[in-house]
């Protein structure tokens, strides 16, 4: 059976027009549990922690540190367990 790939999406932080990736808190290929701290983004003097949406393995990091991002952008990919 083919593993399900889940996109990590930039959430809607509310009236925020732009944000930037500060750091990934997990390395590529890390095994994740749903809700694990995954990466930090910053906007308007606020650091926001994005949690892992599912359990599985982090297979792609599409937005490295300092990448500018917007709501709905795909930040990475997880192979769901």
């Amino acid at each position, binding site marked *: 059976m083919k593993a399900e790939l889940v996109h990590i999406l930039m959430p809607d932080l509310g009236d925020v027009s732009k944000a930037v990736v500060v750091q990934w808190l997990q390395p590529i290929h890390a095994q994740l549990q749903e809700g694990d701290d995954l990466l930090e983004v910053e906007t308007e*003097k606020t650091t926001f922690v994005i949690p892992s949406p599912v359990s599985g393995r982090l297979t792609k990091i599409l937005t490295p540190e300092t990448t500018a991002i917007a709501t709905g952008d795909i930040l990475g990919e997880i192979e769901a367990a």
Partner: protein
Amino acid sequence: MPLGKADYGDVLTLQRALHARRYAGKLGDLLLSVEHNPVFTLGRSGSRDHILVPTDVLEGQGISIYEIERGGDITYHGPGQLVVYPILDLREYGKNIHRFVWWLEEAMIRALSDWAISSARKEGFPGVWVGERKIASVGVYVKNWVTYHGLALNVSVNQEHFRMIRPCGLSVDTVSINDVCDSKVDVATAGMKVILHLGSLLERDIVTMDPKEVT
């Protein structure tokens, strides 16, 4: 919840513990107010290049440096400065980061107005400004939609300490309430005023707690 004068590290540990308890639903929303001993803090986008004096000079004056998780660059906390740390669950306030930062700034703008000090936001430069001088900063951390870190308002700060850094990475002048206000204001009074305005913006009643009730 007034903490009086307290070391930065102790209050950082307290904030992290309260954040976890707030997320677990074991506490309601909290607003901590405190006056710190001298310290420089570097946020996630902070750089030590923005410290303009050698480390041994800082040590000689008893100023510590903390690298922390909040948003923003470098700032100073110390005697004569009000610091307020909201531990709030933003899921109960519409999950809106922009509005939360706006509330923090607005609470300070309204408090300053009570002392007839005209202040404003500055497009692209978060915080509160009196003319071209910065009087207050914001820097927040949000995990699981629960906040910590917060705001800092200069009441009667030693400007020499601010000159040791490039606040928020900017070459700006800072100012305190007592530089531009006829009546002398103390940090505790400023804290009560800012917290009352913040409560009003959040549409919550403010109840003063003894720190022993939650620590």
